[in-house]
């Protein structure tokens, strides 16, 4: 990882999407043990994965991990904290007047 350059990595991953009444969730797991660091970007390749209501979709896919540069990683560590407010239930709506 360079100070200003990004590295690209391919990683096999498993995507699980549950669009069920009692559990709405979606997770990506890297199957080669790849670890994500602050500022890294992940792109799962292929078609958009859509789980119809009432179903769970599990798919093995290929992902590209775009490693953040050293500087970007530092920046994300310094500034990421302020996005923590998003976890509040009332923080999400982008529109000020509906």
């Amino acid at each position, binding site marked *: 990882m360079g100070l200003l350059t990004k590295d690209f990595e391919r990683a096999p991953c498993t*995507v*699980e*999407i*549950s*669009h*069920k*009444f*009692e*559990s*709405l*969730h*979606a*997770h*990506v*797991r890297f199957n080669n043990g790849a*670890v*994500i*660091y*602050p*500022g*890294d*970007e*992940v*792109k*799962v*390749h*292929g*078609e*958009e*994965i*859509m*789980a*119809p*209501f*009432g*179903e*769970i*979709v*599990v*798919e093995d896919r290929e992902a590209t991990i*775009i490693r953040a540069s050293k500087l970007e990683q530092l920046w*994300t*560590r310094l500034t*990421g*904290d302020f*996005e*923590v*407010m*998003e*976890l*509040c*239930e*009332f*923080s*999400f*709506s982008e*529109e*000020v*007047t*509906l």
Partner: protein
Amino acid sequence: MNIQNNAPNPDAPTAGATHTADATTVEEGLAIQEEQAKFDSVAATEVAMQNTLLTPRFYTTDFDELDAIDVSSVREDWDKLIDQMVSDPNKGHFRKNEDWDHVDWDGMEPQLKKEFIDFLISSCTAEFSGCVLYKEMKRRGANKDITQLFQLMARDEARHAGFINDALREAGVAVNLGFLTQKKKYTYFRPKFIYYATYLSEKIGYARYITIFRHLEAHPEHRFHPIFKWFEEWCNDEFSHGEAFALLMKTDPKLTSGKNVYWIKFFLTAVYATMYVRDHQRPAFHKALGVDPDWYAHEVFTKTSKLTEQIFPITLDIEHPRWQPTLEKLQKANVDLAEATASGRFFAKLGAQARAAAAFVSLFTIPVKKHQVPASTRLEPAY
């Protein structure tokens, strides 16, 4: 696309529960869901639905620091709380039953419908994001106490998200989970900020839901949607999650002393101010509930302050003469900012930003109220 037909976990129990609301573990829930999936045929109706893409963030944190937590100083309280969460008193609660009245979506006043759907989507996204964060912490942690807690919380959040999603479907809104294949960036939160923010978010969530629930108990004529009937059990989950974070913070006194008290003050101010501003964006929603948003905010802040005394050494002085007028200024600046941004007026935007920042500083500099933190942390929901 591969729609799964086999149990994802061979160890998952298959006998007993027949509805995922009764499922004890995520794995069992998934196994039951697969069975049900065979009977679901809704693709046809989904075509006509309004599509809402969920866009949660993805997070990393310092997982070594998380693993280093030692709960032995609060072991007794910790085990009791975890046992209660494992016993899952709300299992089976989040399903529609005969109390789920028919909702006349077509007859609903358009502005109310818009605001109410916005409320449901933001609630759903928050639950969903909580699930993503907790699951990530569960997956990458190695400390058994911590991973078990996060697994249990992820279960609850996914259950809540699914329940809200169903209410949205009735309204003709389909939640799109296709975000995973978009490029997404992982942001970073320091563990202590996760504790402060999620603790507060769970406790203020409890205060928000219970305040509405009690209000509608007294005024059932304002209950324009059945989901409000589920708020009591719902907020008890939020309450337990908050308790867990309170115990986590209790294990390290540094988290609630010294300069961290300023961080606590910052988070309290930011969370209260955000809630105030956001709630005032939904006037029709509050009118339909028969709730004055200013009264509601004050009520929720009062309850939250009382609850957070269990672990935070300070509370905000919400009775201070500067508090309410400054919140109103912040709200006004926020509306002006949105208008200026929409119409592309650069200096108006700059001015509104400056006013919002000044209002926040003014709120932040109101002297706090200090108190002695009780030796025993644990609380039970009492509102």
